[in-house]
């Protein structure tokens, strides 16, 4: 009897394996756009917001006309779990789904980890908010619509000097995180060039006790704390900074532009500022139209609202996700084909005016950007407020 049960269990498992593999045959009039984003793990919150931007763009434009034939765009969304060892598998799923072009990811580490999988399949990728230079360096298939960490780090260093008059900066980065360590390094370079001194410390994966780090920052008499970390670490840092009564301003990169930060900082006496790609208060026509349209779209569905962190604040990464999708559509149109190699070629000549500004790629595949927005948290009203448009000196 037992043997029969075992036999059937194995049979069921084997069948389940095969049923998982039955790939949908690509229909001739469907173009698949892969979405390579985290929806769990450290960067889950941000990744979900980026996907929302892409989905909103998809709801606006979901067909492409090539040679008089209408093609429907299908989104294939995978979760790379914010983890560099899961990322290649997730990427492989998109390759198997016959994606013509891929969008993503939030977080540079996963993008770098999955880059070769897309390269070997000749699929072009448009990075949405992966800001580390290594993502596009030395390859021809990875593009990105956001600015880079060397630029962002320099902008933030300039801001720290201009706004806070900081002479000493305390930099806190997460060990082994390409984004965090990279941005910390560029900030340090720029800050030292501006004549400041830097104290650097790193924390490990899974660390949740930041009291000692913050005490070190106070001891070093830093004028600013620069902490380019994931939002998960950020909410711990902010919570502990507030309970320790830290008065030093906290500064961070684009990842902190999230409602998680607002939740953590509201009601405290902290000063928190972040650099970002897009400002909700943008009153250019395309920007304002995007903000109102996106809000209405979010509010129409509770799941979407929950994925955005339970409110309708427009995150910069959503705007970038929207632009990345539109760039992909432009490239498909320009290529006049669903063939990924042709799309890759046409991407080099794209010039598209998106909601985050004009997008054209330079010879490494990076969008040419020259300003960043700086926002700060209004802790009493739990909202972002615009600080400055910062450029590099």
């Amino acid at each position, binding site marked *: 009897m037992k043997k029969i049960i075992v036999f059937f269990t194995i049979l069921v498992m084997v069948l389940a394996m095969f049923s998982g593999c039955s790939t949908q045959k690509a229909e001739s009039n469907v173009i698949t756009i892969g979405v390579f984003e985290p929806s769990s793990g450290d960067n889950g919150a941000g990744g979900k917001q980026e996907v929302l931007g892409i989905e909103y763009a998809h709801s606006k434009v979901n067909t492409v006309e090539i040679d008089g034939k209408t093609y429907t765009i299908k989104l294939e969304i995978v979760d790379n779990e914010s983890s560099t060892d899961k990322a290649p598998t997730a990427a492989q799923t998109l390759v198997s789904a016959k994606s013509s072009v891929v969008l993503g990811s939030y977080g540079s580490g996963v993008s770098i980890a999955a880059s070769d999988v897309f390269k070997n399949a000749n699929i072009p990728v448009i990075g949405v908010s992966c800001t580390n230079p290594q993502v596009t360096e030395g390859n021809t298939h990875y593009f990105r619509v956001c600015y880079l960490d060397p630029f962002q780090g320099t902008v933030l260093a300039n801001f720290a000097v201009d706004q806070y008059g900081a002479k000493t900066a305390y930099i806190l980065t997460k060990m082994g995180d390409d984004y965090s360590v990279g941005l910390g390094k560029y900030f340090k370079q720029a800050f030292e060039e501006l004549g400041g001194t830097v104290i650097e410390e790193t*924390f490990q994966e899974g660390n949740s*006790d930041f*009291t000692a780090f913050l005490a*070190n920052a106070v001891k070093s008499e830093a004028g600013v704390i620069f902490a380019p970390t994931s939002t998960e670490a950020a909410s711990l840092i902010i919570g502990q900074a507030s309970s320790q009564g830290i008065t030093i301003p906290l500064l961070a990169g684009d990842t902190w532009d999230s409602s998680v930060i607002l939740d953590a900082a509201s009601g405290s006496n902290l000063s928190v500022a972040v650099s970002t790609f897009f400002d909700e208060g943008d009153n250019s026509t395309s920007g304002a139209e995007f903000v109102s349209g996106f809000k209405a779209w979010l509010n129409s569905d509770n799941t979407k609202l929950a994925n955005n962190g339970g409110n309708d604040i427009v995150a910069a990464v959503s705007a970038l996700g929207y632009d990345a999708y539109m760039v992909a559509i432009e490239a498909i149109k320009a290529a006049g084909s669903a063939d990924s190699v042709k799309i890759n070629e046409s991407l080099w000549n794209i010039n598209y005016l998106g909601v985050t500004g004009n997008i054209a790629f330079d010879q490494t595949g990076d969008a040419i950007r020259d300003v960043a927005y700086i926002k700060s948290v209004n802790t009493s009203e739990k909202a972002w407020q615009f600080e400055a448009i910062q450029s590099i000196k």
Partner: protein
Amino acid sequence: MDFFKENLPYIMAGISVGGQYALIAIGYTMVYGILRLINFAHGEIFMASGFMMVYLSAVLPWYIAIPTVIVSTVLLGFIVERVAYKPLRTAPRMSIMISAIGISYLIQNVAWYVTSGLAKQYPVIPWISNTVTIGNSTTKMVTLATPFLTLFLVSVLVVLIKYTKIGMAMRAVSRDFETSQLMGIKINSVISATFIIGSFLAAVGSVLYFSNYTTVTPISGAMPGLKAFVAAVFGGIGSIPGAVLGAFIIGISENIIKGLGWTAFSDAFTFALLIIILVAKPTGLFGEKSTDKV
């Protein structure tokens, strides 16, 4: 004096986190003392307790939510023992260990599923979340309250083990499993009581820990669990005072190391300390020789 003043924030953080490790470590050490089992799921029970508080406090006021969380955590610990460990009582020790690892991943993955991997903000509990200023450093009330509450709970536990009938039964079972069974001790209720006490302390520990480090994630239990386990081994596994002392030593030294600027090595230091102690004294600080081993 100057050194003390300058390092006060680190020492306070160390004592506080040490107290929280101690509350978790007791769960490890008591279960080991009785079943000779390292209950790998203990860190996950601690984490689950954190999530219960997050979800319950959204619908209940905190003074009802906390007791509910404690009761549900105790229930979870009890169920884990009944489902995953009790059927394996006569099985080889390795099987029950693997079962513990399985349960640990099961709880973790359920948490991943429920939260979809996103960090949750721990609710603010009045009084213990208030900030206080001591000397020139500011901290939360929970930092000050933790060591006292820990010591109080440990004293109650020691009294319970020394002077009550169930305590005596626990001591007997930990000394000789088979003989105490022959003497008419209801072994299953003793083991359940152990898990109930362990889970109760883990629940209290989780309230204190997450009030201080206010983000709960499905892997929040892993590091504190591991550190508490190290503390239990450090103090001599099976010994309650050993676990408490070990936890305080680890909490304080880890924070002092960070204060000295060796932040990247604070975890490495904890484990190096463990190796050194085990090489010098394989049974830990209070191992084996201690009389009130539970």
